[in-house]
């Protein structure tokens, strides 16, 4: 590497260590050093392996050595994961110890012992490595100002993982708090390569904002698994290719197989195990596994003691597993960034390309895989949409502020709107959130004597906590990550991990399922522990796990549409795919890149309408519900619909004659509110909102609530609130969350705005080749929860009555 002789880092305290290691300073490290030294807030974009962590610490270490024996906290390092935080400490330890630098550094996360935490508060280290949640907690202590008043730098690692979720909101509010405590504080963000770098800069930087970017010129080598087997029309389990996947594992030293859901992970693991004739060491890793099991797998992985790990996104971030030779992605990539992140887990060396194999599990996924490879070649990344700040996080922050001491509301408001996500927060909404923390913020004032915070008599703008005991409740509730209700699984006395309560409820004694790679038999559930034993059964239910379904990114969707339209490229695909597309062209039509194909045909007494939107699963699901209502209005007697990432199919008793009149922006405006009312989406998000805003408690010392009980009571609150106070700030907040996250409102709106001029309507006599995959997905019921409940009761009653041979009473 060509290093300028005037490189200022040659005088850096770490230079000696770098020289000894025969390492060179990267240009982006020099650039960052100079910008930060001249007072800029900086975001650094660089791929893994480009010394990102070190880049963040260059200025702090330089500064600390110059200041000599600096007392107190100097630099704060925020990591998205606890495990990553520990890894950072290990990396930092090496140069500091070897050079015998007089710099103290420690980690502080949820795993740090109370004793250590206490000591840290009394005698803070120079560098503290922590997580957003632990930072929020630190800011809620009465001596927070004292603790942070000399803070010089805050480093946000993997900043790209924070930008589009509620953790980002929490972090942004706490960074502004630190800035208030220590006005000279400088911010350094470290990020993987991003498409919209400017957005990350806007989010983080205040002082002379600067972007430093280093692009990797070595492209990863990605190919699609060449399979002799027939690629299935639909499905997500890749059973067809299991032998070929096994062959790939055998051929390389260490492989990580990434899948998209935890259920897929268990399934893939089980299937590999069944054909594991060579006795390869294969492990499984996902977020529901017990921490110790996960750590064991991670440890074996870094020491190279396994041949293959099947993993979900749980292994996407963080630790450097140097020996991983190959990545296999099973299932659709869903997004470019995500695929790159996963592919980057192999060969953590800048000069050798990462190697990856994609295994599409069905035909649409095959096209998606080709598209993803194309876009990576063009370096066309997905955009990460910054989210507007959520109300519930502000409420939690207000509570935290009150725990730290009395506060003036105008000062707090001014501080909050400095945070990028809350630039547009209205004073009126903010005041409602103050009221929410004070007494629930209801219009009906019943709780005057029970308030949590109160206004000082001499100054109504100053609020104070009524009782210090409340700080404890805040600390139990901190954070924005809400898991769905989970139960612990016990095999004998050993804990295997956590499983969704909903899944267990559907099991009867003796049913078997796969978890942690083992076939287990459900025995009993007592005191929220699921007791299991090993099972010899071959038939299993796979843990369902609600989370983890990522919609197809807009970027990749556009690329898929582009590929479909380019018929001159088809011959490059495997014959089955080419054949499939050619037949579609003859039987119906292949839509152009900006066209929306709608096919209609009769099948088995019903009338089918298939719309190819490529809008991603969330948006399509929403559109399906809206169209059901639209069809009902026109009296087409719709019976149901199924959506996937690419299309929606609806079936009805009558022919849908005026699809063009129904399918437009009016549909969204007319039916969206009704849709939100009827499904449980808002209700579920209300639960998260109620917990995050501390309206209800997650858990309390001594009265450990089960997840179920929290869910139950938040449902009741939701129902009562909607009836009596539909304008309540938390309902508003839940609706906003629903629109933003669950239903992809903006994406749907964009499509519906332009769709009516671009519809290509094909009336067919029978099903088209392109429609086959989605038609095969029709086997689920798509009724709302309320309807489902009534349906189950009705059906069960009828069945019993039939059995008893009596007639219904009503």
């Amino acid at each position, binding site marked *: 590497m060509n290093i300028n002789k005037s490189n200022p880092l040659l005088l850096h305290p770490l230079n000696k260590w770098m020289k000894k290691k025969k390492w060179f300073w990267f240009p982006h490290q020099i650039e960052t050093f100079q910008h930060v030294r001249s007072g800029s807030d900086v975001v650094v974009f660089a791929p893994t392996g480009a010394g990102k962590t070190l880049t963040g610490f260059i200025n702090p270490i330089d500064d600390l050595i110059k200041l000599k024996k600096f007392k107190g906290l100097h630099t704060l390092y925020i990591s998205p994961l606890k495990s990553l935080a520990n890894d950072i400490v290990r990396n930092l330890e090496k140069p500091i110890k070897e050079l015998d630098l007089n710099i103290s550094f420690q980690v502080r996360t949820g795993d740090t012992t109370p004793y250590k935490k206490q000591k840290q508060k009394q005698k803070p280290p120079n560098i503290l490595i922590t997580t957003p949640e632990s930072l929020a907690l630190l800011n809620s202590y009465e001596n927070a100002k004292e603790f942070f008043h000399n803070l010089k730098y805050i480093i946000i690692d993997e900043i790209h993982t924070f930008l589009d979720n509620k953790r980002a909101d929490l972090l942004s509010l706490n960074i502004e708090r630190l800035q208030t405590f220590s006005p000279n504080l400088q911010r350094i963000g470290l990020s993987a390569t991003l498409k919209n770098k400017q957005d990350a800069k806007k989010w983080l930087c205040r002082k002379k904002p600067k972007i430093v970017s280093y692009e990797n010129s070595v492209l990863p080598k990605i190919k699609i698994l060449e399979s002799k087997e027939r690629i299935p029309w639909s499905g997500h389990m890749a059973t067809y290719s299991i032998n070929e996947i096994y062959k790939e594992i055998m051929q390389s030293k260490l492989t990580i197989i990434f899948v998209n859901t935890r259920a897929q992970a268990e399934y893939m693991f089980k299937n590999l195990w069944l054909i594991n004739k060579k006795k390869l060491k294969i492990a499984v890793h996902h977020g529901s596994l017990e921490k110790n099991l996960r750590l064991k797998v991670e440890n074996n992985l870094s020491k190279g003691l396994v041949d293959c790990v099947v993993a979900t996104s749980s292994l996407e971030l963080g630790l450097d597993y140097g020996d991983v030779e190959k990545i296999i992605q099973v299932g659709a990539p869903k997004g470019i960034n995500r695929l790159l992140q996963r592919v980057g887990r192999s060969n953590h060396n800048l000069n050798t390309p990462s190697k990856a194999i994609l295994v599409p599990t069905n035909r649409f996924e095959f096209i998606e895989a080709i598209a993803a490879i194309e876009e990576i070649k063009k370096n066309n990344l997905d955009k990460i949409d910054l989210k507007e700040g959520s109300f519930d996080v502000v409420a939690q922050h207000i509570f935290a502020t009150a725990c730290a001491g009395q506060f003036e509301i105008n000062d707090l408001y001014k501080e909050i709107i400095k945070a990028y996500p809350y630039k547009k927060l209205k004073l009126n909404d903010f005041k409602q959130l103050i009221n929410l923390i004070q007494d629930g913020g209801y219009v009906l004032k019943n*709780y005057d004597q029970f308030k*949590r915070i109160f206004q000082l008599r001499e100054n109504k703008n100053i609020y104070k906590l009524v009782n210090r005991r409340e700080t404890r409740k805040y600390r139990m509730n901190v954070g924005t990550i809400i898991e769905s209700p989970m139960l612990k699984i016990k095999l004998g006395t050993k804990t295997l991990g956590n499983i969704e309560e909903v899944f267990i*409820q559907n099991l*009867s004694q003796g049913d078997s399922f796969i978890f942690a790679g083992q076939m287990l038999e459900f025995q009993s559930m007592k005191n929220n522990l699921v007791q299991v034993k090993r099972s010899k059964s071959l038939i299993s239910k796979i843990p369902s796990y609600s989370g983890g379904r990522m919609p197809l990114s807009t970027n990749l969707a556009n690329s898929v549409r582009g590929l479909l339209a380019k018929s001159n490229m088809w011959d490059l695909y495997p014959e089955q795919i080419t054949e499939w597309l050619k037949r579609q062209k003859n039987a119906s039509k292949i839509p152009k890149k900006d066209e929306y194909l709608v096919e209609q045909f009769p099948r088995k007494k019903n009338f089918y309408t298939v719309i190819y939107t490529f809008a991603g699963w969330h948006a399509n699901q929403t559109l399906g519900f809206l169209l059901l209502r639209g069809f009902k209005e026109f009296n087409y007697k719709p019976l149901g619909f199924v959506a996937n990432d690419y299309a929606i199919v609806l079936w009805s008793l009558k022919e849908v004659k005026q699809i063009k009149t129904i399918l437009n922006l009016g549909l969204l405006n007319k039916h969206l509110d009704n849709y939100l009312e009827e499904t449980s989406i808002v209700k579920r998000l209300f639960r998260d909102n109620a917990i995050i805003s501390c309206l209800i408690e997650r858990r309390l010392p001594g009265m450990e609530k089960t997840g179920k*009980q929290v869910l139950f009571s938040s449902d009741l609150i939701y129902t009562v609130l909607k009836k*009596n106070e539909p304008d309540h700030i938390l309902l508003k907040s839940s609706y906003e969350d629903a629109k933003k996250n669950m239903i992809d409102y903006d994406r749907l709106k964009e499509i519906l705005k332009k769709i009516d001029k671009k519809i290509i309507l094909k009336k067919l006599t029978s099903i088209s080749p392109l429609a086959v995959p989605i038609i095969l997905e029709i086997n689920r019921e798509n009724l709302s929860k309320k309807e489902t409940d009534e349906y189950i*009761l009705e059906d069960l*009653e009828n069945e019993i009555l039939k059995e008893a041979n009596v007639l219904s009473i009503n």
Partner: protein
Amino acid sequence: MYYQLINFGNEEFHAYPDKSLYWKRLNTLIVSDLHIGKSISYAKNKQFLPPYDTKEILNKIFVSLDKIKPSNLIIVGDLLHDVFSTLSLKDQDHKNLSQYMKNTDFIWIKGNHDKNIQIEGFKNFTNYKIDKLLFTHIPIETSLFQICGHYHPKVKISHRGKTIFKTCFIHNEKIFILPSFGILTGGLDIHSKQISDVLGKNNLSIYPVGQDKVYKL
């Protein structure tokens, strides 16, 4: 409103989806576990539930009284959640209550939650006997048929791969348990030890409460 016919203790009852029980022969309406003022009681511990439960429960009762016009209203315990609950009864609520008391005899059987609380104009009892039926909050040792509350029974139904929980009316040969008439009240699985100890496990008649209808299992 649809009702479900229930035979218990050689008498006929109508179970309504609003979780009330009607004894036609004696024109008597029976409800249980209203837990009025539960929200206030939680607010004490800084859990701020929507303060509308009292209003809603009273409205529900009034709607039912208007429609059925019973001679008697028996409340099988836990009318109030605790001592603080009376705070949520406003002047207008008291006025409305006394208005209804002109045509209906209110019989308030004390439960574990409200045994030490008084409300002006309410007659209260530890239990109440009519013919061979005994109304009591928690079942006692007796040869009489008993109609009780207290347990907020809820039934788990697994059918065609789906599982739901529903509030229910439930009885065996001698003991009948009403669901909670309240708004912010949770429920207890009928297979829990507490309920099994009272009803046993066999020969149970279970009536889950649906949206507009009471079902029979």
